[in-house]
């Protein structure tokens, strides 16, 4: 692992507290010892990041689709926690965090080979670092499903996110956090603006375009079937995001405190700003706007949460509201693509803004960099992500199309809803559902 450069660049002040042990370790000084405090926070953070996917993201997206498709969204989140969880320990962690390659790591730690309960990673057990990072690998692919919700077949979805994890996510995680090529550039991406949000947002866009719009899109309204579910989801994303961002300090220290605080203030600012824009533009602030703003603010502060100060974080949040609002309400409608739940507009665009803003409003430029060179590093890494992720995604999709056939459900299935067509279930049932126990199935 090469956290050194990362550490130097991500901390607000020159002498990076959170990861200084890494530097020490590399320098051959006293080996770091287990910190129960840091471990406690990282265990908590790991649980919080899972909370973001289950039930956070599942509800946020699930509330936004029509009644007939909510279960398909929930299942796509559940299976991500299943399949990504397994791939991560099999090869993912090793490829991302073991070895010095510029683009990808090695397989030395396949199935966590060589790691035991007393192996440390800095001041925490390496197991804890593995699982914390594993939770990122679970949520990132699931973020994409919002773009092609209500129309993708379940099997191809599973295949897509599995390959995508290995081909897109893991290399990016290695390049940025595992000591690879983008880390060498000196780009700042504290908790994953590039690795998590841009990568998923840009990939989601090409997937939405490749799959095509939902039947009736643009003619029939497709309003959210349950905004309360969406708000619960957004709220749990917000709460869980503290684990995501402040957990990325890998310690319970001042950097974690800073990241926690800026996460909150950026999100507050985004919520307020979005409501103001809606008030001015539409006459009324909406709840869906508030929930969307919260997520946009959280996305944007993700890469920036440890490099800006509190005032900077407010600007990050305001910028996120303005830019994402513009994308999801104006640009999308102008261009006419069907990114069902605005994954590109919120994560792709918000992540890009955040990656820039991390340096635009930087509190202290890292040693050896100037503000200009740092901005340049950001732009380069943004460009790489914005090209690599969608390019790789479209290739995966085209290949899958050839191997698995149509990635999209049939028109009938789309009309009937994915819950019945793909999972033989209905979300809600009442006494007039008119079911009868079938002969084959027996009682239950």
């Amino acid at each position, binding site marked *: 692992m090469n956290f050194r450069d990362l550490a130097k660049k991500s901390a607000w002040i020159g002498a990076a507290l959170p990861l200084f042990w890494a530097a020490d370790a590399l320098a051959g000084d006293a080996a770091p010892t287990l910190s129960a405090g840091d471990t406690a926070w990282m265990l908590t953070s790991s649980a919080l990041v899972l909370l973001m996917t289950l039930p956070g993201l599942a509800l946020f997206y699930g509330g936004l689709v029509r009644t007939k498709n909510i279960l398909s969204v929930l299942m796509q989140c559940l299976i991500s926690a299943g399949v990504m969880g397994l791939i991560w320990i099999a090869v993912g962690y090793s490829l991302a965090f073991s070895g010095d390659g510029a683009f990808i790591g090695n397989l030395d730690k396949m199935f966590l080979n060589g790691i035991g309960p007393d192996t440390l990673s800095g001041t925490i057990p390496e197991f804890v670092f593995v699982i914390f990072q594993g939770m990122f690998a679970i949520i990132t692919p699931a973020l994409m499903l919002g773009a092609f919700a209500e129309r993708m077949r379940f099997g191809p979805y599973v295949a897509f996110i599995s390959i995508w994890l290995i081909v897109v996510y893991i290399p990016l995680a290695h390049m940025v956090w595992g000591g690879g090529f983008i880390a060498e550039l000196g780009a700042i991406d504290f908790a994953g603006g590039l690795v998590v949000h841009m990568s998923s947002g840009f990939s989601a866009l090409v997937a939405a375009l490749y799959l095509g719009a939902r039947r009736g899109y643009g003619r029939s*309204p497709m*309003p*959210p079937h349950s905004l309360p579910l969406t708000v619960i989801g957004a709220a749990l994303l917000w709460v869980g995001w503290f684990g995501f961002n402040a957990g990325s300090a890998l310690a319970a220290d001042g950097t974690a405190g800073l990241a926690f605080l800026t996460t909150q203030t950026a999100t507050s600012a985004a919520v307020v700003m979005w409501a103001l824009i*809606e008030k001015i533009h*539409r006459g*009324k602030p*909406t709840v*869906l*706007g508030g929930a*969307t703003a919260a997520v946009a603010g959280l996305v944007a502060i993700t890469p920036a949460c440890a490099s800006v100060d509190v005032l900077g974080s407010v600007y990050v949040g305001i910028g996120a509201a303005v830019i994402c*609002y513009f994308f*999801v*309400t*104006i640009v999308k*409608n102008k261009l006419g693509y069907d990114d069902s739940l*605005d994954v590109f507009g919120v994560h792709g665009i918000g992540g890009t803004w955040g990656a820039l803003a991390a340096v635009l409003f930087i509190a202290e430029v890292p040693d050896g960099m100037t503000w200009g060179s740092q901005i340049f590093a950001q732009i380069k890494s943004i460009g790489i992500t914005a090209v690599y992720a969608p390019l790789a995604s479209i290739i995966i999709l085209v290949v899958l199309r050839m191997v698995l056939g149509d990635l999209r459900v049939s028109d009938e299935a789309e009309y009937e809803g994915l819950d019945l067509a793909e999972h033989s279930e209905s979300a809600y049932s009442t006494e007039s559902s008119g079911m009868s126990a079938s002969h084959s199935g027996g009682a239950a």
Partner: protein
Amino acid sequence: MKLIEAIIKPFKLDEVKEALSQLEVQGITVTEVKGFGRQKGHTELYRGAEYVVDFLPKLKLEIVVADDMVERVIETIQNAAKTGRIGDGKIFVLNVSDAIRIRTGEKGDSAL
């Protein structure tokens, strides 16, 4: 026997029921419906997309009564359900050729 079908504003249910009880109407069946009519709908916003909602929530009451009650029932509903504002609803009267009480098998007016 007639079936009186009244479409009313939901918040008027209590008053209408109360008024009908005093007429000794024995039964009412209520359905939640959506109504489209002269009363104009509203606009809803979802992430900047604007939808026009023409259908408004209404309640449909079905009351089967003997012929001699029809006029009084209509009048009572009209009085109780009226706000004077557009969208108050309608009353339709249909002919019923028979009525049966499931519990007892009684038929005709005595089944009501």
